[in-house]
């Protein structure tokens, strides 16, 4: 099995990408119980902002090594423009409604954002391959990989460590856990739940935008970019367990490896196996592999 090396490397790279793209979704669901379709819009927004800003940055002849910071800055910029406005301006009036209705509200927002993107950036594709090509490449089992992919892996590891640290070792994280467990009781004890919702939604959207902006150099950025990502991140997050951070990591690794194995050995079944895993997990453990039982309320 000489292919085992490339299969693993592909799997790890794809897992890292999936984790970055999907972790924000589980965060938002875990805290706010919103299955957020606009997640894909923020991914696309991040990709467009990253591609256009980096393109402008390089065209002016600024140091190309800093283009990674520009990618990050682009993601931050679009998130700060759109996410707080959406949460404060619309979503907060919907929290009393049914989970499914809120999902439809985010679906409506997704349709609106799709066209907003076209209005801002037009319908022509954007290419910025420089950050991707800049770092050279490495070789595994006779196949060459761009070193850029290692940035994705590093970013995924840093994000998961950072989120775990914030959630379990800081005051804010502990308050957030309290909000997740019982928003009403937290409110009664003086926690500013509204602010937690605002910050969570913004942070979750920022993660999607970062996923998009760091993918931008590897693809051509075209309209409809976020549409696939939505349902793929749904799969990742559902496999791990909605609202569970370790679950999102596990889901990303499972989907990443499964896809990599199928692409190497039987490419016809790629999409089929990903969603079959999702359906199997739902069939046997509907709350996902790491999902917790609903805490009982009186």
């Amino acid at each position, binding site marked *: 099995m000489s292919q085992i090396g490339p299969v693993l490397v592909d799997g790890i790279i794809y897992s890292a990408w999936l984790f970055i793209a999907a972790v924000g979704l589980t965060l938002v669901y875990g805290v706010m119980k919103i299955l957020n379709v606009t997640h894909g819009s923020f991914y696309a927004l991040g990709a467009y902002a990253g591609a256009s800003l980096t393109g402008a940055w390089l065209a002016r002849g600024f140091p190309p090594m800093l283009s990674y910071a520009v990618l990050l800055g682009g993601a931050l910029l679009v998130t700060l423009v759109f996410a707080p406005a959406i949460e404060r301006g619309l979503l907060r009036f919907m929290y009393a409604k049914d989970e499914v209705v809120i999902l439809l509200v985010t679906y409506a927002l997704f349709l609106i954002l*799709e066209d907003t993107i076209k209005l801002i950036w037009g319908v022509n594709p954007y290419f910025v391959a420089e950050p991707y090509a800049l770092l050279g490449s490495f070789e595994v089992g006779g196949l060459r990989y761009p070193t850029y992919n290692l940035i994705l892996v590093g970013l995924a590891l840093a994000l998961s460590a950072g989120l775990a640290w914030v959630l379990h070792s800081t005051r804010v994280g502990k308050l957030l856990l309290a909000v997740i467990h019982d928003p009403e009781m937290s409110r009664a004890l003086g926690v500013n739940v509204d602010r937690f919702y605002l910050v969570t939604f913004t942070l979750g959207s920022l993660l999607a935008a970062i996923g998009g902006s760091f993918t931008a150099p590897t693809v051509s950025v075209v309209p409809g970019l976020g549409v696939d990502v939505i349902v793929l991140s749904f799969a990742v997050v559902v496999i791990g367990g909605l609202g569970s951070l370790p679950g999102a990591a596990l889901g990303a690794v499972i989907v990443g490896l499964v896809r990599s194995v199928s692409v190497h050995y039987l490419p016809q079944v790629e999409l089929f196996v990903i*969603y079959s895993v999702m359906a199997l997990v739902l069939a046997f453990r509907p709350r996902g592999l790491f999902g917790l039982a609903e805490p009982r309320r009186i």
Partner: protein
Amino acid sequence: MKPDRTPALLGTVLAAVVLGGLALPQWTLFILTIAFAQGLVVLGLMLLQRAGLVSFGQALYYCIGAYTAGGLGRAFGTGDLFVQMLAGAAAAALVALMLGFLLARYRGIFFGLLSLALSMIFYGLIVKSEALGSTDGMNLVKTTLFGVRPDAAWVRYAMAVAAACLALGAAFLTHRYLKTPLGRLGPAIKDNEIRVEYMGASVRYAIHVNYVIAATLAGAGGALAATSVGHIDPEMAYWTTSGEFVFIAILSGAGSVVAPFFGALVFGAIHTVAYDVSPNTWQMSMGAALLLAIVFLPDGLWSLFVRRRPG
């Protein structure tokens, strides 16, 4: 007891299509036919919605119906609308019967997600199967009605009338079903499942039956859409297609079996006008319409026609 006005309403709509269709231009007849196809799917979603379930994978059955119609043409060369719709409905019903054993156990967001996963599995299958044309899909043979190909000037009218007969017939049967004890269980399940079980009814059985009926309607709708467009592709099973159906269901409301068709027509009208006015921002108009419907008409467009009794 109030007299049941729905059969009369269905008859009026049919008469309006038969007579009004003579005066309408061809392209509106096409929109009308598509509205009947989508209305059939949404009628099924309405049955599930009454029981508190929202399926984000109804495109699965829509696409099964469409590909059954396409396959019939390829295997037997038949393009008969009635054969296509019957076969599409039967194929969808068969799949739903099997998947129903699994899905009838799920509620809320998990029902939606599992149906989404199942439709995406089907999408993944046909997108990669070259025999079915992969992402390009395939063209259908020319539609016939009872083996006859209508004259080119009349084909849109004939199809709109045939679609109206079949769709409104299905709506009438669904209306009758909703009057049976099993049909009446839907809202009861939504309100309180445990109470329904204590009454001696099986919630799982009732959901399973509703699920199969919904799939049958979606299969028929898919075949109708396929044959009137003349082309099918895997996008018909993609999640955005399911999203559109849920959109129409929310827009229509669950007030009457006529509501889904009205909602689908309004959806088609918004779509056509928005696309005509500004091709790059039609989705924005659709999204805005959906938001407005959710905020101001939580019971759908149909609630505009229901007289509210005071107190």
